[in-house]
C-alpha cells in the first residue's frame, strides 16, 4: 500500500525561515527508503542523509535473512545446535519481536521463515504448497521455539530447522535506528519512509503542526481513505497489493497466519500509528492476522496509545474498525464502521 506524504512539492522548497526541504532516496531491504529533511544547509542535509542511510544499511546487514553474513543468518544457522551469543542490539530486536508474538498469541511470529519459503514468497515464486510440505513445517513454526536469555544475550531454538524471518518487523526496527541518528544530529523536521511499509514523522515542517499523511484506499481506485497529521510518530501499513500471487483465480497474500500456516483471507488493509516504528511494524501484522475484534482488544491492552484503522471484507462489502483513529474517513471506502471504546464517535467525512 502506498502511503503518501503530502503538503509540499516533491522538489526542494524554501520556507520563510530559510529551512529548505531536501529529498533523498536509497535502496535497502528490498525497497526504497526516502528521507524528506528540512535543513538550512544543503551539505549538512547530504551528510545527515548519508548517516541515516548508512545506519539503515547497517541494520539490514544485521537482520537480513538473504545474506549469509548477517547476524540473523548466523543465528538461523547455529541456534538449533546450542545457545548463540549475540550483541545487545540483536537481543533487543529479538526481545521486542518475542513480546509482540506473546501478546498477540502468535499472530505476529518471527519464525515464519520456513512458512514463507514453502509458499514461495522468499524468492517471489509464489505457489500453493502440497499439504505434506505444510505439515512438515508445523513444528518449526511458532514463536515458542525461540528461547531467549536477555541477561546472557543468548538465543537458542527449541527445534531444528527453525528460521527467523524479519519481514514483519525489520523495517520498523531500521526506521527507529535511523530516527535516533536524526535526533542525535538535532534535526527538527524529517520524514523517513521505508517504501510502503513504515514511515516516521519527526517534528513538523515549518509552520505546521505535523506531517500530513495520506492513507489511500484499497485498489483499484486508490483514492484517499484517510488523511492524518503525524508528529513524532510512526505509521505502518500492510496490504496484499504488492506481494501476492494468483492460482486458480484466487489471490494469495504474502502475510501469513502462523496458526493456520495459510495466507490471511478477508483483510484488505491496515494502518497503525505508534511512537515506536518497531511496534507499529509488528502490530500491522497483528492487525492483519487477527480478527478486528481481537485486534482492538490487543491494542487496548498492549498499545493503548496507538491509532489504528483496519479495513476488512470483500470488494462488495467493506467494513472498517477503528482504534483511536480520529482522522476523517472516506465513507465510500468504509460504509460500515466499528469503533473501539477508546474512539470518540464522529461522523465519517472527508476533510
Amino acid at each position, binding site marked *: 500500500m502506498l502511503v503518501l506524504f503530502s503538503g509540499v512539492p516533491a522538489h526542494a522548497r524554501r520556507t520563510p525561515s530559510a529551512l529548505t526541504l531536501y529529498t533523498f532516496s536509497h535502496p535497502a531491504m528490498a525497497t526504497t527508503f526516502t528521507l524528506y529533511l528540512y535543513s538550512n*544547509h544543503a*551539505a*549538512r542535509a*547530504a*551528510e*545527515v542523509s*548519508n*548517516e541515516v542511510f548508512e545506519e539503515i544499511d547497517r541494520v539490514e546487514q544485521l537482520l537480513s535473512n538473504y545474506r*549469509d*553474513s*548477517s*547476524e540473523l*543468518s*548466523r543465528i538461523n*544457522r547455529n541456534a538449533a545446535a*546450542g*545457545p*548463540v*551469543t*549475540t*550483541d*545487545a*542490539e540483536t*537481543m*533487543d530486536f529479538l*526481545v*521486542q519481536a*518475542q*513480546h509482540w508474538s*506473546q*501478546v498477540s498469541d502468535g499472530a505476529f511470529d518471527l519464525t515464519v521463515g520456513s512458512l514463507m519459503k514453502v509458499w514461495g514468497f522468499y524468492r517471489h515464486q509464489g505457489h500453493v504448497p502440497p499439504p505434506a510440505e505444510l505439515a512438515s513445517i508445523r513444528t518449526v513454526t511458532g514463536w*515458542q521455539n525461540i*528461547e*531467549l*536469555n*536477555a*541477561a*546472557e*544475550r*543468548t*538465543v*537458542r531454538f*527449541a527445534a531444528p530447522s527453525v528460521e527467523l524471518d524479519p519481514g514483519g518487523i525489520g523495517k520498523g526496527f531500521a526506521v527507529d535506528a535511523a530516527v535516533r541518528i536524526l535526533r*542525535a*544530529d*538535532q534535526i527538527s523536521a524529517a520524514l523517513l519512509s521505508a517504501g510502503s511499509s513504515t514511515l516516521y514523522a519527526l517534528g513538523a515542517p515549518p509552520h505546521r503542526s505535523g506531517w500530513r499523511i495520506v492513507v489511500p484506499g484499497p485498489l483499484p481506485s486508490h483514492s484517499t481513505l484517510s488523511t492524518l497529521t503525524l508528529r513524532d510518530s510512526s505509521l505502518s501499513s500492510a496490504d496484499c497489493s504488492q506481494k501476492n500471487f494468483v492460482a486458480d483465480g484466487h489471490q494469495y497474500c504474502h502475510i501469513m497466519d502462523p496458526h493456520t500456516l495459510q495466507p490471511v483471507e478477508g483483510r484488505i488493509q491496515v494502518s497503525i500509528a505508534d511512537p515506536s516504528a518497531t*511496534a507499529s511494524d509488528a502490530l500491522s501484522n497483528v492487525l492483519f492476522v487477527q480478527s478486528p475484534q481481537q485486534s482492538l482488544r490487543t491494542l487496548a491492552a*498492549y498499545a493503548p496509545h496507538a491509532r489504528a484503522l483496519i479495513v476488512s471484507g470483500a470488494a462488495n462489502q467493506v467494513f472498517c474498525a477503528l482504534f483511536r483513529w480520529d482522522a476523517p474517513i472516506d465513507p465510500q471506502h468504509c460504509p460500515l464502521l466499528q469503533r473501539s471504546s477508546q474512539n470518540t464517535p464522529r461522523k465519517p467525512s472527508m476533510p
Partner: protein
Amino acid sequence: MNRRAFLEAASLTALASSPLARAAAPAVKPVRLGVIGAGSRGQEDMRQFLRVPGVTISAICDIYPPRYAQVNRLAGAEIPATASYTDLLSRHDVDAVLIASPVSCHAEHVIAAARSGRPILGEKALGFTVEDNQKIVDEVLRAKILFQIGHEYRYAPWVKEAVRRICRGDIGKPTHVEACWNRNGDWRRAVPSPDPGQKLEHLINWRLYRETSGGLGTELGSHHIDLANWIFGEQPESVLGTHSICIYHDGRTVGDNVQSVFQYSGGRRLTFSSLTDNAKSGNQLWVYGTEGSVQITIEDATFFYEKKRSNQPTADKPISKTIVERGVVTGASYSTAGEMPYRGPGERVETGPAGDPTLDSIRSFVEAVRGEHGIDADVHVGFRSGVACSVAHDAVFSGNRTPIPKYRDSASLA
C-alpha cells in the same frame, strides 16, 4: 504483560526452568575488553566482540563525548567512559585492549597498551608513518604481548581457501593483483553545528585530512595490500602513486580517488584503485597467474583458468575431448578464447555460508587471549601492509616511485 515487564522477565536468569534461562551458553573464561577509540569502526568491532561468548566491555576511551551514549546503547549497559587512555589502561578490569582510534594515533595508543602488558587487537593500518610502524613492532616485541592487526579477511574461510589454492599453484605463478574499492559517496560524517574553528570537522572527518589520514589508499587499500603480501609472500619493494580531487571540492586534503602501483620482487605487481563517485566495481581483488585467475570479494572467491592450462592433457585424461576452460566445460572444437573478456561462471570456492570476517577474526583473537592458539595476522603482518600504506600515502603526493623499507630489528641491532 507490557513491554517493560516482558523485558524484565527476559532478563531474569533466576527463572531456571523457563525457556528464557535454558538458552544460556556454557561457561567460558571471561575476557574483559577495554576500548580506545569508539567511533564507527570501534563500535562495529565492539558489536562483534559481544557476539563472542564470555566477552564483556569494561570501559571505553574516546575524546568525543557523544560516543559514550552510543556505546551504552550498543552494549545494552552503562559502560564507564573516559577521555584519557592512561586512565583506561590503569584499570584492573581490562584483560585485552581494542584500539580503533584514528590511524595517526595508533602508535601512541598501541605503544601505551603494549607497555601495560595486555593483548591488543589493533585496527588497521598498523601505524601512520614509517617510523610509527617501526616503533609499534619494536614495542610489541619488547613487551612480548599478543598483537593482532585488523586484517579480518585473513580469517574469512573463502579467502583462506583461495590463497591456499593459489599458493598450491592452481593458477600457476601469480604475477599480478588488481584491486579496487570503489564507492559512491563523499566519505563525510555529519558535524554538529556550530563548529568554531572547524575543530569538530577535523575530529569527526579526520579521514579527509592529510595530517591525520592515509586517505583511501590506507583506509581502504590496506586490506588489498595485505592480501597481495600474503599471496606474494613478501611486502612490496616500492610504490608509485597518484591521486586527485575530482568531485568533492570541500576542503579535504586527501584525494577523492587514488591509484597506486606496488612493485614486488621478480616484477610482480599490485595495482590498487579507489573511486568515491562510482560504486560499480565495489570492493574486489583479482589475482592473475600464468594459468588462471581468481576473483576475491567480501563474500566469495571464484577461480577461472587460462586456455593453455585447460587444454593440456592430464595424467588421468590424456586424450580427453572435454575441456574445462575458464570454468566452463566445452568441447575440443569450441573455444571461449579471444580478446573479449570472459563473462561466464567460474569455479566458486565452496566453504559454506559466508559469515562475517570481522566476527571470525575477533573470535580468533579472543581464543588466542584464552591461550587456545596463536595469532595469524600478527604485528609483522600489520607492519608489511602498514609500512606500504605509509609510504604510498606520501608517494601519491610526490608522484615519485618510492622505496618501502623493511622492518629493522632494533633489538638485534642493539
